[in-house]
């Protein structure tokens, strides 16, 4: 299938990407071309093939559910664009009630 501008706009919004009209004009044909190209997989009958998600013959292991670090609040916050009183801060999103 091809991806028209509206589909790309919707996908971009799902992916939290702001796109301009000019970008939509550029991305829509590119993404359509890629989709049409990958659709050649339709030539293959895969009805009896199990999907593959783990490529190696080794089952992933789980570690013990034990706390093995801590007291690293400042290291965690060191890269924060904005931090205050030990918290990440974000723009205010709750409007004050008028009444």
């Amino acid at each position, binding site marked *: 299938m091809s*991806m028209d501008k509206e*589909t*790309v706009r919707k*996908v*971009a*919004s*799902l*992916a*939290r*990407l*702001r*796109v301009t009209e000019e970008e939509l004009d*550029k*991305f829509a044909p*590119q*993404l359509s*071309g*890629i*989709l049409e*190209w*990958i*659709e*050649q*997989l*339709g*030539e*293959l009958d*895969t009805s009896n*093939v*199990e*999907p*593959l*998600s*783990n*490529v*190696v*013959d*080794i089952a*992933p*292991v*789980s*570690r013990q559910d034990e706390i093995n670090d801590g007291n*690293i609040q400042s*290291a*965690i916050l*060191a*890269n*924060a*664009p*904005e931090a205050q009183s030990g918290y*990440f801060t*974000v*723009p205010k*999103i709750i409007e004050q009630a008028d009444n």
Partner: protein
Amino acid sequence: MTELTHLTIKSAIESLEKKEFSSAELVQAHIDATEKARHLNAFITETPEIALEQAKASDARRAKGEAGPLDGIPLAIKDMYCTKGVRTTAASNILHNFVPPYESTVTDKLFNAGAVMIGKSNTDEFAMGTTTESSAFGNTINPWKRKGDNTDLIPGGSSGGSAAAVAARMAMGGTGTDTGGSIRQPAAMCGIAGIRPTYGRCSRWGIIAYASSFDQAGVLARTVEDCALLLQNMSGFDPKDSTSADIPVPDFPAATRTGDVKGLKVGVPKEFRVEGMPEIIEKNWQKGAQWLKDQGAEVVDISLPHTKYALPAYYILVPSEASSNLARFDGVRYGLREHDDPETLLDMYERTRASGFGDETKRRIMLGTFTLSAGYYDAYYVKAQRVRRLIQQDFLKAFEKVDVILTPPTPSAAYPIGENDDDPIAMYLNDVFTVPLNLAGLPGMSVPSILTPEGLPLGLQVIGKPWDEATVLKTARAIERAAGFNAMPSSVQTGAA
């Protein structure tokens, strides 16, 4: 001291041990080379102070008889590896100011073995590419040029920074990551060797995630034995990565020392003979098969019938995983934030991601978001997972008959910068020979073989059974011995790199 930059890791370690020179001298020679070749833009961040400090510490360890297996050896570290206290960007504007508070497991192991970091090498943004052109910090230039032609060429990618640094003698080896060919392809285009081990051989912990079921650490160096030595000191189980394998790591350098391929069965897959492939690529491939035959190997025609579906399956699965992995970049906890008067939190997310990511990253995020979205998930994502199994079965079936598979790593030599701009599919086709084994999680290596008539290097690719990097290295060593490839970029020869 320029000759110090031409040594192999193996011989440099022997000389360091014999006190013929110090690590400080060795590292300084590479720092000087890095300064001279800065126009290649192989590094996003050069770290000469750290390198000299590490070199001094290395010399002190050696004086006390406590040197590790890589002690004092200068390496380029791909900027996908988190390095504690040293900016790590994934070549993306969205991480332009990110300083990791921790060290990746692989770099930690390398530093524990004594390795020295010359700098953080350039890559395509988030390792998404085959040319190192999509870096937010500018493209890397291949140290090789066509004969009598000064046009700048791509170094391959995504580990193009490490490849260019090693080829131009700025580092003795480099780390790479290989999701679809990002080690083997730039190694081939820069005339050096590079290996991607089996998925799970090295820990992915602390490597910035791109497509988690494909990503694997690996190395680039100028000889097969040097690759083996580096890989030895990166591999092994890590409790912090549940997909790293808790199985013994073989002696990789030992495998390269014999290089004995007598009786080895080498498969040549007919499906890799693609339409429009330049004659020189075919000739190089046949030469490789003959070199192995001459050393006692048996060359067998094999079939990997689903090869042509590898790329389209890859370009569904990888963008899908990438779109999930890159969802974490939201401008809240680290990295870039666009915060001039955001109207809402959503507005901040969207503007941050719009200005933080480059075009190729955005394309892959959108493609992956689409193929994972309700109504399309089964038709695209699950379908591609089924094709992935067919491709893996092709390889496993072939490996019932042969020990290794020999193919070209690239459909062409290095080409001019900008040639595939705005044609994503043409760009993706560069990966036609490298991607299939990534779908199956297999180890693969590129080793330099010949020069084209234009004077550019080509390589050969050896693909191995799961966990059998040793046979891959051994076969590559046999090719290396027969090829006797000792060409280097003319800029390096004249010392004007």
